[in-house]
C-alpha cells in the first residue's frame, strides 16, 4: 500500500509550540507537504525545550520536544516583520491548500493574512485557527496554557483522588494534543467538502471547548440535576473493585476493574479467595461498591505479594480486566508496542538516530504514513524559494542578506 491519503496537499504552517504543530504532524504523516514557516527572530519555542535529562544543547536543532511533534515536515524561514516577508508568505499560501495557525491573538489579521485576505489569494483556501478560547468572545485573546484551559473548562475540578481535592492534571500535552486531533479531523472534513464542492472555509477551534466535549457526563449532571461532580480518581460510579493497587517492588502498581458478578467470581478464584464471592458484603455490584474500602484492603493484601505484571497476567487469564500502571520510561520498553512497531528510528542530521513514537495510524496490518526527520530551522529554504517559488539564486541571496529570508 503506497498511496498516502494526503499526497498532493500542501499546508502553509504558522503553528508553534504543541497544540498547533500536532495538527500539522497528522497531516504531514498522512502525506501532505507541510511547510513550517519560522524565523530566526522567532523560532518555534520548543526548539529550546529540554526535559532536563540532558544539559542544554547548543543550537536550535537538537530538541526532542521539537522533533517529536514536527517530524515529517519541511522548514523554511521568513521574517514576517518585513513587508517583503509577508509577500513571500503570500506566495507560498497561493500554492497551498491549507493554512494553519495557533497564535494567541489576531496576528494573521495584522499581517493581512486573515481569512478574507487568504480567500483573495486562493478562493478555496482552508484556514485553521487554533487557540485556547476561540477567535471570538471576551476571552478570545486571554493567555492560554493547558492547565489554565483545564481550570476554566472544569477538567481540573474533576481531577483528583476519590473524595479528594482537585489538583492540576499532570498528563503533559493532553489538552494540547486532544485539541489538535479535533483540529486535524476538522481539516480533513473541510478538505473532503472541498473535493465535493470546490469550497474552502475557516475553522475556529477553541481548546477549552474541546475539553468540555469530553466531559458530557459531568456537564449534564449539572444541566439536568444541578449537581456538581467531584473527582472520582481511580474509582468508578458503579464498578467495584475498580482501582489501583500496590504491588511488590518499588512504586509498583496494578489496576483492576470488575464489571459483572461473573467477573467477580472469576476474580475471587484467580486470587485464591473463592469465599469472597459468597461474602454478604460483596455479593453483588451495589454491595461491592458500598463496601469497596474494605474490599480494596483485602485485594491489596493479595496484590502486595505479586509484581504488577504477575498480578495482571493471572487476572487476564481469568478474564478479568487488569494491567500494570507504567511510567513513560517503561512504556518505551513495552514489548507489545515493539511488536506493533509503534516506535520508529528517526535519522536526523544533528541528533543522530532517535527512537520516537509514531502516530496511531495502522492499516491492513501495518503502521502507515510518511515518517521523515524533523526539519532543522530553515532546512528547506532552498526547496521552498528556488523550486516552489521559482526565485533566482541572486534574489534569494539578496533576501537572505536583507534578513527577509531569516
Amino acid at each position, binding site marked *: 500500500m503506497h498511496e498516502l491519503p494526503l499526497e498532493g496537499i500542501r499546508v502553509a504552517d504558522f503553528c508553534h509550540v504543541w497544540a498547533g504543530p500536532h495538527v500539522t504532524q497528522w497531516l504531514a504523516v498522512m502525506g501532505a507537504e507541510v511547510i513550517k514557516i519560522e524565523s530566526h527572530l522567532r523560532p518555534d519555542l520548543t526548539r529550546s525545550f529540554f526535559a532536563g535529562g540532558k544539559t542544554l544543547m547548543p543550537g536550535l536543532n537538537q530538541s526532542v520536544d521539537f522533533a517529536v511533534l514536527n517530524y515529517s515536515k519541511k522548514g523554511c524561514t521568513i521574517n514576517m516583520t518585513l513587508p517583503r516577508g509577508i509577500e513571500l508568505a503570500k506566495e507560498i499560501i497561493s500554492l497551498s491548500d491549507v493554512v494553519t495557525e495557533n497564535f494567541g491573538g489576531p496576528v494573521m489579521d495584522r499581517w493581512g493574512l486573515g481569512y478574507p485576505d487568504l480567500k483573495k489569494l486562493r478562493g478555496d483556501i482552508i484556514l485553521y485557527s487554533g487557540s485556547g478560547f476561540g477567535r471570538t468572545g471576551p476571552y478570545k485573546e*486571554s493567555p492560554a496554557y493547558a492547565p489554565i484551559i483545564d481550570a476554566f473548562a472544569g477538567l481540573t475540578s474533576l481531577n483528583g483522588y476519590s473524595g479528594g481535592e482537585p489538583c492540576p492534571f499532570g*498528563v503533559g500535552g493532553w489538552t494540547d494534543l486532544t485539541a489538535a486531533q479535533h483540529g486535524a479531523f476538522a481539516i480533513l472534513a473541510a478538505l473532503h467538502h472541498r473535493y465535493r464542492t470546490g469550497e474552502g472555509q475557516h475553522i475556529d477551534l477553541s481548546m477549552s471547548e474541546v475539553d468540555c466535549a469530553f466531559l458530557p457526563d459531568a456537564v449534564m449532571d449539572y444541566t439536568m440535576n444541578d449537581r456538581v461532580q467531584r473527582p472520582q480518581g481511580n474509582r468508578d460510579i458503579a464498578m467495584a473493585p475498580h482501582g489501583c493497587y500496590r504491588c511488590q517492588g518499588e512504586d509498583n502498581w496494578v489496576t483492576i476493574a470488575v464489571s459483572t458478578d461473573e467477573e467477580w467470581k472469576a476474580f475471587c478464584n484467580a486470587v485464591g479467595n473463592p469465599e469472597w464471592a459468597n461474602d454478604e458484603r460483596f455479593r453483588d455490584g451495589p454491595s461491592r461498591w458500598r463496601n469497596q474500602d474494605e474490599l480494596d484492603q483485602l485485594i491489596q493484601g493479595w496484590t502486595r505479594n505479586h509484581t504488577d505484571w504477575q498480578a495482571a497476567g493471572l487476572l487476564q487469564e481469568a478474564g478479568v480486566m487488569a494491567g500494570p500502571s507504567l511510567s513513560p520510561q517503561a512504556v518505551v520498553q513495552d514489548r507489545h508496542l515493539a511488536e506493533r512497531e509503534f516506535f520508529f528510528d528517526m535519522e536526523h542530521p544533528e541528533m543522530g538516530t532517535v527512537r*520516537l513514537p509514531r502516530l496511531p495510524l495502522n*492499516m491492513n*496490518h501495518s503502521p502507515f504514513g510518511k515518517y521523515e526527520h524533523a526539519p532543522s530551522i530553515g532546512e528547506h529554504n532552498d526547496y521552498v524559494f528556488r523550486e516552489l517559488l521559482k526565485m533566482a539564486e541572486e534574489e534569494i541571496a539578496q533576501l537572505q542578506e536583507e534578513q527577509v529570508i531569516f
Partner: protein
Amino acid sequence: MGALSDLKVVEWGEFISGPYCAKLLADLGAEVIKVEKPGCGDRSRSYGPFPKDLPHTEKSGLFLYLNTNKLGVTLDWASVTGAEILRELITQADILIENHSPREVEELGFHYDTLSKANPGLVMTSITPFGQSGPYRDYRACDLVSFHISGLAHMNPSGGVDDIEEEPPLRGKSLQADFLAGLSGGIATMSAVFARRATGQGRHVDLSQHEALASVIRRDLGAATYEGLERIRVKGAQPSTETLLGQCKDGQFFVVCNTDRFWANWVEVMGNPEWADTELFQNRAARRENWDAAKIMIEEWAKDQSLDELVRAAQARRVPCMPVNTVRESANSEQLAARDYFAEVDREQMGRVRFPGAPYKLSQTPWQVARPAPLLGEHNEEVLCGRLGYTEQDLAIMRVEGVI
C-alpha cells in the same frame, strides 16, 4: 449541507470509543446507522446521568450526547437473520465503525477480509484496547486499565505526591481514555476515506487505544528515549512548573508564572509585597529553586482575596490565570455563552436537554444537531423496510424471535 453528508456509515459498537468516532462523522452530516442489541441496547443507556437519578433506557445523558444525529436499529447479530441484515447494511456502507474485541469479530464472521469481498470500497475502523495484533491483543481493558498501562497515570497529579507508597498513580477524569480512542479513530477513518480516492479500494483501520494514548504523551516518550529521562512520582523530583493552584476566600484559581514578565506582573497583582523583592525570587532559576516558598507566600496573600477580583487583576496584566471552575461555572460562563457553545435538543421523554456542542466551528459547513439520539430501534422500519426491502410482517416475526 454537512461537510461529510455523502458518507454512509454503519456503527456497530457501544459505550464510548466506537460511538464517539461515529459521532464525529454524524455531527458533520454523515449518515450513521447505529446498530444496537434488542432489549437493553448500548450499555451507555444505563450509565447516566439520569434526570432525578432515575435510570431509564431513553434518558441517559451519556447516550444522548454520544449518539446525536444517528439513526438507530436493533439487531441480534448473533442470530442468523440478524447477522445477515448487518452484513447487508455493511455492504451498502462506505464506512463501518466497530469496537468489539478482535476475537468476537472473528467468531461472528465479520472479519474485514470477508466484508471487503462484498464491498471492496469498505473502510472498516476497528477500535480496540490493544489493536488487532501483538501479545496483548486479547487482553480485556476499560478506561482505567488503558489510561494506566499507557503511562499517563504515572504523571498525575502534576508535581507528584508526598508518599509514593500510599498514593497510587492517578487516572484523570473518568472516560477520557475512551473518548481519546474514538477521536483518534475518527482521524484514522477519514485518512482511509482519502486513501480510497485514488483506487476505490477500502482499508482495515486498526486503531489501538494503547497507541492512541501513548501518542498523547509523545513528549515524555521522546524525553525517555533521547534524554534518558526517568519520570519519578516523588514530589520535587521534577523541575518546578512555576504554577500554583491556590485558594481564595471564595474559590480556587490557577496561575502560571513561568516567565519573568508573568512573574513581575503577578507581583504587581499581589500589590508588590516586600518578600517578592529578594534574591530568592529574582530570576527564573532562583524562582524554580524556591517555588515552594513562593507558593506559601502567595497562598498566604490569596486566602483573603476575592476570586473574581484576583482573576480580573491578573488577566488585566495578561498573567495566565483562571478560576478553577466546576462544570457549574463553565456551563454558565460568559465566554462559552458568547460562543454559543452549548447545544440543546428536545428529546422525546426527556424534554429539553443541554450538553456540550461543537468542538470546532466550521464557517461553511457548521456542526449541528439535526436530530437527537435515537430511541432504541427507532428507525427499524425506515432502514429495514425502506432500504433493505423487508416487509412489516417480516419485522413482526423478527420482533417475536428477538432478532430486532
